[in-house]
């Protein structure tokens, strides 16, 4: 893009403060843009407005008391964050998980992934100026929230997983609702594709915009759909299959160019793959207990440390926990995908237009509270 425009005159450069309150920064992100006309000379993301000290909080409470915090970091895929935290602690304390609980967790996590991607789809098209798909996507997402609300009692911050299982078993109605939702969602794809994917304006706004090359992505630690759009099939569910993901037949969609359009395609295809996983999990749902009753209320894992990485809706997420043998973790650190995905923008935004900046910012799908923690 850069070579298409004339070189900037230095004394015409001015700074535009995009955020922290701006319709398109989704939360409290602030980006300092140095502009020449509408061309971005330099982009500098400023983070930390939503800092709540989650990691420090983790050191001051019981292992299980940290559970609600996890779903408040990435509030759009809270279930996956709960799930990952449970897996990390279970690995640290060697806790057995019943088969049925594993399947339930996978189903709920994938439902959550779809809801997160649907929200991204809606808000991304809204960033590009199309308001209607936003409400269509929210209509579908509402079904997922209802399903998860029924089983966990909460719409966003679930805290549904427990060490050794889940809080409550799922029933026939849950299974029926989920199947009905999958059918409904699949009947909606043609609408979405006619309204957005095939739209000429949409394609022009995203094709060749914000290209993240595989090298650049790896330098900045970009993960998730943004990395896969660059052509690297990196997904923790396949690379190091955790839980029961190795039992399901699903594909990792990858892009070719790494532009915003590829990221869009990858996410849309990922929703379909999540549908396939949920279907297979519902078909093979085993009977049995849904929680390991032997896990004590105040867990004291043996001395040691653990790093457990999993795939959230935005990329590779990891919990690093150090136990000194007491009821409280000695150190609790979280690796979040949005941090790398956001910082790569300093390179990508250079030489683009303000309108492109919005398109690129939306296409990498960052959730600011998970960066700020």
């Amino acid at each position: 893009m850069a070579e298409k425009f004339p070189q900037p005159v230095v004394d015409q450069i001015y700074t535009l403060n995009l955020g922290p309150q701006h319709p398109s920064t989704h939360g409290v992100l602030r980006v300092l843009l140095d502009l020449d006309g509408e061309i971005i000379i330099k982009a500098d993301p400023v983070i930390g407005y939503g800092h709540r000290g989650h990691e420090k909080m983790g050191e001051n409470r019981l292992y299980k008391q940290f559970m609600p915090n996890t779903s408040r970091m990435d509030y759009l895929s809270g279930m996956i964050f709960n799930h990952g935290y449970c897996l990390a602690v279970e690995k640290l304390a060697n806790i057995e998980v019943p088969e049925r609980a594993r399947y339930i967790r996978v189903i709920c996590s994938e439902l959550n992934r779809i809801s997160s991607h649907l929200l991204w789809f809606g808000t991304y098209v809204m960033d590009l100026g199309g308001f209607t798909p936003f409400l269509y996507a929210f209509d579908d997402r509402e079904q997922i929230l209802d399903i998860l609300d029924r089983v966990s009692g909460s719409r966003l911050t679930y805290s549904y997983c427990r060490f050794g299982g889940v809080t409550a078993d799922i029933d026939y109605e849950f299974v029926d609702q989920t199947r009905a939702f999958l059918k409904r969602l699949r009947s909606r794809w043609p609408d979405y594709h006619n309204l957005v994917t095939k739209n000429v304006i949409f394609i022009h706004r995203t094709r060749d915009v914000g290209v993240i090359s595989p090298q650049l992505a790896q330098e900045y630690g970009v993960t998730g759909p943004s990395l896969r759009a660059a052509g690297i099939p990196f997904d923790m569910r396949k690379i190091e299959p955790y839980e029961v993901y190795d039992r399901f037949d699903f594909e990792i969609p990858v892009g070719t160019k790494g532009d915003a359009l590829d990221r869009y395609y990858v996410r849309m295809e990922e929703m379909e793959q999540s549908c396939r996983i949920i279907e297979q999990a519902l078909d093979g749902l085993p009977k049995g207990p849904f929680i390991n009753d032997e896990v004590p209320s105040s867990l004291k894992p043996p001395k040691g440390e653990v790093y457990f990485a999993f795939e959230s809706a935005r990329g590779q997420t990891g919990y690093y926990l150090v136990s000194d043998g007491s009821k409280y973790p000695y150190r609790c650190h979280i690796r979040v995908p949005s941090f790398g995905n956001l910082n790569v923008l300093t390179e990508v935004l250079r030489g683009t237009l303000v309108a492109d900046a919005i398109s690129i910012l939306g296409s990498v799908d960052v959730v600011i509270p998970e960066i700020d923690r």
Partner: protein
Amino acid sequence: MGNEVGTSWIRLIIGLLIVIGFSQINALFLVWLERKVAGHIQLRPGPKEVGPFGLLQTIVDGIKLIGKELITPLAADRKLFVLAPVLIFMPVLVGFLVLPFGPQLILRDMNIGVILVFAFSTFSVLAILAGGWAANNKYALLGAVRSVAQNVAYEIPLLLTVMSVVLMTNSLRFSEIVAAQGKVWFIFLQPVACLLYLICATAETNRAPFDIPEAESELVAGFHTEYSGMRFGLFFLAEYTNMFIVCAVATSLFFGGWYGPFGFDLGLPGVVWFLLKTYLLLFVIMWVRWTFPRIRFDQLMNFSWKVMIPLSLVNLIITAAVLKFV
């Protein structure tokens, strides 16, 4: 002689009062219509609480806006800042003077009616530039700059398409242009011009997908970022009144004005046909807004200079050649 002058003055004053009243009520109605259309497109009912079908919602909103504080930023150019909302509504009213609502329902059937409408609609750019500049806000300035570039780019093809219709009727008088469409509407003779006109008119009124001067997700609110209360309301109402005017002009230039299709008027008076077609066009513009994402600024300019202007020029030349030699 003196009597005639007297009646024409009375006629003008009464006409102006009707125009002001109609344009305000019409703008309020259009805001309601837009919200209703948007609602139904987006699987929700739209306004429905205040009045029957929510018809009074916009009036209530207007009262709320009047009650709000008019904030002038400290760094703003006060005079220009206050003037801009007034400036944007003034030219909009002039357009109503020459619109042919019916065979007898033209306030002033001027022989330069077409030119008058477009000459005054250009004023709105000036108002947007004044407002965006005076606010002394970077978002507002960006919006204003975009708006000027966009309007310059789209006024050229707009006028070129209008010229091809004028060539066919040899008149700039709205009544004569409409009268020439008694049997065949010009959309069937000038389909390309009609399409180009509708695209340009959408861009001219800053409507999505060409709403880049206010691009909500990029520039917060564009040129009217710093406006509050009824000053913002005036910008808002002017946008809808502008929409009505470009659609009314489209109706008279391409869709046969007060005539029914193919000479069948089904016993309805001309003004009913005229308003029916105008509101149908307005509905199309609203429908487009709630369907398409926004075009990027440089793509918009490319589209105008590389596609719209050559196409409208070719169309004009072909029209001229056909009229001359056939």
